[in-house]
């Protein structure tokens, strides 16, 4: 209480300083939430890739944005040494055009032949309705985010690429790629992929042979890298991707990206810290005589130091709380707006909140260190003489 009274002695200045900190914390929370979401997406990918090899056409990732493979390859791959089981999947972008600006999780259509069952460890569970079966023509099961974009519900219909599909189920939230995916049968997905092909090749491709990627499950004890190289050697024009390669291709660039994001946020917070130093220095100067009186009536240097440190820490705390509240609000608002477009960009995690607040308080305290030290080391007699 006393600390607050001192801080708000100069209301405008206190407000501006706190505002400076809260802008920094706001930036940290919002940008951090973006980084957290991306990290989680990639971690989801890591989980998906764990323990298996994914075969794409050359240049593709996770079955999207690649030239189609042929169904006949399934048997070829399954005969390769070290391969235990192969499952075919078919995927496409939900909308024909990629969004001009795309970040995070892009809405997709996904289908698989059901051969992965019992081998796949990355299993998405059903929240409502039932899972999709191979025979569910013109039916779909929806990821937890995409359901909002398509405005679907179990038993209702959604429109995809101009066609109506019945919704049989909605999946649990995974916080990664499947949340933004429409699961349909291979047959339906193959038609969509076929329609997307350039006219020149369309006629030479039979829809029901189209495969976007194969998930390759390995014999126990086989190393993914070894099997992946074997697949690439024996089958033309494919990329066999291992968990390690996925990590190298996706996780490392992401780490650079998140480092840059955090650096920007921290710089804005540092500017806020400078304004705390400024405010506290002015506050100490204005209260020089008061500090003299306090020392005369028995305050030790430590007590004076703690008083001013507490003030700067509380400035950091209030600024931090305001920035957190504002950041969480904006992130939630942006997510709500993004859900309609199937684009949930932010993930506010507890560790982000705790770290941001701790950082704000720590920064406030640190910024108060010099002014507080200066106040504590004032000569009481000179301070008393100060007008």
């Amino acid at each position, binding site marked *: 209480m006393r600390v607050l009274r001192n801080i708000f*002695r100069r209301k405008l200045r206190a407000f501006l300083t706190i505002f400076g900190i809260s802008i920094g914390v706001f930036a940290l929370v919002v940008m951090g939430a973006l980084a957290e979401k991306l990290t989680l997406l990639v971690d989801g990918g890591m989980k998906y890739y764990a323990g298996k090899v994914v075969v794409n056409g050359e240049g593709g990732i996770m079955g999207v944005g690649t030239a189609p493979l042929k169904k006949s390859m399934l048997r070829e791959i399954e005969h390769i040494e070290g391969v235990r089981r192969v499952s075919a999947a078919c995927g496409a972008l939900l909308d024909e055009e990629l969004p001009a600006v795309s970040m995070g999780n892009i809405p997709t259509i996904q289908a698989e032949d059901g051969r992965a069952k019992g081998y796949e460890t990355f299993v998405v569970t059903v929240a409502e309705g039932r899972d999709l079966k191979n025979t569910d023509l013109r039916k779909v099961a929806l990821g937890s985010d995409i359901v909002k974009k398509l405005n679907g519900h179990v038993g209702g219909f959604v429109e995809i690429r101009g066609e109506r599909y019945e919704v049989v189920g909605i999946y649990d939230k995974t916080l990664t790629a499947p949340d933004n995916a429409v699961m349909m049968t291979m047959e339906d997905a193959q038609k969509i992929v076929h329609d997307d092909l350039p006219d020149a090749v369309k006629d030479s491709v039979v829809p029901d042979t189209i495969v976007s990627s194969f998930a390759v499950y390995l014999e126990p004890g086989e190393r993914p890298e070894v099997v992946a190289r074997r697949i690439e050697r024996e089958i033309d024009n494919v990329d066999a991707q291992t968990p390690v390669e996925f990590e190298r291709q996706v996780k490392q660039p992401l780490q650079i990206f998140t480092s840059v994001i955090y650096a920007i946020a921290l710089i804005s917070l540092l500017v806020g810290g400078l304004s705390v130093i400024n405010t506290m220095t002015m506050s100490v100067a204005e209260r020089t005589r*008061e500090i003299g*009186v*306090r*020392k005369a*009536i*028995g*305050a*030790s240097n430590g007590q004076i130091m703690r008083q001013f440190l507490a003030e700067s820490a509380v400035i950091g705390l209030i600024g931090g709380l305001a920035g957190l509240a504002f950041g969480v609000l904006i992130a939630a608002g942006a997510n709500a707006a993004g859900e309609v477009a199937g684009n949930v960009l932010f993930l506010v995690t507890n560790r982000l909140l705790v770290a941001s607040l701790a950082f704000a308080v720590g920064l406030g305290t640190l910024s108060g260190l010099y002014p507080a030290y200066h106040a504590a080391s004032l000569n009481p*007699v000179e301070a008393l003489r100060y007008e």
Partner: protein
Amino acid sequence: MSEPSAGTDATVPGAFQPAEAALAADPGREVIVRAVALAKRYQLGKSNFVDALRGATLDIARGEMAAIMGPSGSGKSTFMHIAGCLDVADGGEVWLNGRRVDGMPARTLVDIRRREIGFIFQGFNLIPTLSAEENVALAGEYAGMSRRDALARSRELLELVGLGDRMRHAPSELSGGQQQRVAIARALVNDPDIVMGDEPTGDLDTATSAEIVSMMRAVNVERGTTFLIVTHNPEVAESCDRIVRMRDGVVVDDGDGTPQGTDAQGRPQ
């Protein structure tokens, strides 16, 4: 306190000498503050300095109420600050309550200020963000009292100085005289042996000054607290037991009726 008595030594004209009588009547009377040949130099610029004290010597007896007068720059405030352990001298000795305190570490001096000395300053000398009772309690808290105990003690003292109905007021809501009464209460929180006042009536009108002085006198009489008051105001000084006069950094008249440089019995020191 002691009755004013006629001066016994004409070499110090105009000196007000009640303490002389007290000391003479009781030669064994305890000295609470003894300052011997204090020197203090302030550096103002690179080669510009001021000798605020150049050998100031003075004894203050326990239980007396002494005034220090002197023109601006005579060193009276500096003397009080050093005697009050707020500042340290460049030379000389300071004795407080029978032990030598000059040269003690700053940490120890803080402790001494807390337990043995109370301060009252001129004008702005309360913390503006604290209420009257919090201002008084603060000195107790600094000395290690719990906030609860300090506030209880604070209320008791504010009653004593007649501010029982103003305890929750901020300093800005109190008159100058009321603020100084709060300052007196604050100076008394830790039951000090001596209260030092640096122009405690400096900003007050005549009537209010008199009120503050009589309040300090009442504390002096009832509690036996020693007062050392630096003042410009002759009326304030004359209400004290004796008037110490300083000029150019030395005590030119210690007001006990003996020539400077001799003790109360007239022996050379």
